[in-house]
């Protein structure tokens, strides 16, 4: 579903009924048989089937989860890693709206959209793991809040954060629908939603790490420490920005017909600036990890297989990309910035999986290995998110400029 059949100028709802407009928008645009579609559609359909089987036959029929390892890649990858990558939204809105770095203004909307969809889908993926998913509403409505659990915080934060992201993104929806009064009201709420979102993010990024504080004896000492929440928070900064770089590069190519000339030229400058911030954040993170390591006094553990794995993660996927960001910032090497972003993202995936899955009960007799069905469901969730992402970008003014009436209001 590439090349939209409609012209590039944003559509206004000029008087025609809103229902026929929405019906029209629901119709697919572009080709059906692109390589991405051909790969993703079967996986999504298969994933849907597997989810149905999971709910009929129970989680054991589809996954390798056991009483010993109750949390697998659905939580370790979809929820924990996905939320880390969605951290770009709070970092970027902080930079643009609070620090007034308006250079990055053109990518705020797409990053906020990405963050919003990430949280919606990964909170949804969380439901797959629950034995009694209908109880997920309890922390909210109060049928046993569960205030002694970190999950109470996570549940509330996810809900509030999704709301804040939706409000931040809603001016784009109003522009799409041509709702001028709504646009005015919602634009006024942006800064409040931004501040709220940033405050929430700091807590739930670290909160997901705090979930593992309880598992002191189960996580390998090189990854377990009382500082997991802080490390998760700091790493979410550059995880989010690396995701912005990666996804921005792809969007820039795929949706290039929507991007205005000015924003095309601005891309290099934006990537350049982001690499500096990533280099700085990763420098701080590396030293934090070093300090935590020294504090834990696990020197003798370095000479074990898990120790080598730890060194690989720290040196290969934190220190080296940090140096690459540093170098490419000074030499303005855009290719290396993108490469460093990919390495960083792999490092974050590695780190999160190490804490949640690989380092969890690393010394058990039988290790947890995800079934192919778990992997298919994970991919299906990600692909569905990308489909909706693409649907929104092709219709709403996310990458393309806002319609004139909205642009005038914003200034």
């Amino acid at each position, binding site marked *: 579903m590439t090349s939209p059949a409609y012209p590039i100028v944003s559509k206004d709802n000029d008087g025609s009924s809103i229902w026929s407009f929405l019906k029209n928008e629901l119709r697919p645009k572009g080709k059906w048989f692109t390589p991405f579609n051909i790969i993703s559609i079967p996986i999504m359909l298969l994933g849907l089937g597997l989810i149905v089987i999971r709910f009929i036959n129970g989680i054991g029929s589809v996954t390798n989860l056991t009483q010993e390892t109750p949390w697998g890649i659905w939580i370790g990858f979809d929820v924990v890693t996905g939320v880390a990558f969605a951290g770009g939204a709070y970092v970027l809105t902080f930079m643009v709206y609070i620090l007034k770095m308006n250079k990055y203004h053109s990518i705020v909307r797409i990053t906020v959209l990405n963050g919003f969809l990430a949280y919606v889908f990964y909170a949804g993926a969380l439901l797959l793991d629950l034995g009694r998913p209908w109880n997920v509403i309890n922390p909210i409505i109060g049928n046993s809040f569960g205030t002694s659990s970190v999950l109470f915080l996570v549940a509330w934060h996810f809900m509030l954060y999704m709301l804040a992201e939706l409000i931040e993104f809603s001016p784009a929806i109003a522009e799409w629908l041509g709702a001028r009064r709504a646009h005015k009201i919602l634009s006024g709420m942006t800064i409040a939603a931004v501040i709220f979102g940033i405050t929430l993010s700091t807590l739930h990024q670290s909160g997901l790490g705090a979930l593992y504080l309880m598992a002191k004896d189960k996580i390998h000492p090189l990854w377990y420490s009382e500082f997991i929440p802080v490390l998760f928070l700091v790493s979410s900064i550059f995880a989010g920005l690396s995701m912005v770089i990666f996804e921005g590069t792809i969007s820039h190519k795929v949706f290039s017909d929507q991007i205005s000339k000015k924003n095309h030229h601005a891309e290099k400058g934006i990537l350049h600036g982001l690499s500096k911030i990533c280099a*700085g954040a990763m*420098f701080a993170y590396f030293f934090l990890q070093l*300090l935590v390591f*020294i504090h834990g006094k696990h*020197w003798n553990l370095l000479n074990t297989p898990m120790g080598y794995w730890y060194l690989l993660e720290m040196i290969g996927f934190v220190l080296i990309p940090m140096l690459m960001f540093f170098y490419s910032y*000074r030499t303005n090497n855009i290719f290396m910035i993108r490469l460093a972003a990919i390495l960083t993202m792999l490092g974050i995936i590695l780190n999160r999986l190490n804490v949640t899955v690989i380092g969890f009960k690393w010394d058990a007799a039988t290790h947890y290995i995800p079934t192919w069905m778990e992997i298919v469901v994970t991919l299906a969730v990600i692909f569905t998110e990308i489909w909706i992402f693409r649907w929104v970008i092709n219709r709403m003014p996310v990458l393309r400029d806002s319609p004139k009436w909205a642009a005038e209001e914003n200034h």
Partner: protein
Amino acid sequence: MDGFTYNNIFETKGIEYLAILAFFAILIPFWLLLNRQIKINKQKSAGILNINTLNIPQGLFFSKYHIWSHLGVSGIARVGIDDLLLHMVGDVKFTGIKEQGERIKKGEILAKINHNGKLLNLYSPISGEIMEANPVLTHNPELLNEDPYVKGWMYKIKPISWTADTYSYYLAEDAIQFSRQELDKFKDFISTSVRKYSPVPSMVALQDGGELLDQPMAELPEEIWQDFQEDFLGKKTFNRKKNCDFHRGAQPENLI
């Protein structure tokens, strides 16, 4: 040995403190190194106009009225406006005066640039026949400011006396030197003009520290533009009363 004790820094917090000190010790050169070479780009994005933020390609012939000429392999020359002039005046719209096929002499008016109704005349640097006017400039005037040397060329002219016309023009290092001199002359011009035309020095064209802000002419009034035309682009504009007491040494010279 009796009475010998030592503190194992691994047993105490000693090594952690050392790690923190090392962090700060490494942070300072890290930060300095990270920011060092980018100063020039920062100046550009901070909106400063000085010799470092200008683009002066070394292979073009620059006339002293800020028009560049480049002779192509086929013998057709392209001419355009130089980066310094564009940074001085700001975003302008371009109106070509001469049409394709017309003959032009060095010193004849070639085009006008216009910013919010303030006009400047541009005079041709070479004599010859107009082969083509850049068609993109009328639709995309921002191309002129974005890329004045490649995509934002003004005219393609077939020269009839290239060597004679460009003999006194600035090339390579001379062009950089000339731009330096023009910037200094321009700073003087701005401060004198602002004092002359507005008793209240409210329009700030110079930052504290003497650095020029980018596009300083953009907000200045019509009278200053007319003075600018005379001092920097050669020849007076029409309908301009010659002000006898205002000659700072820059004479509007004949171009022939």
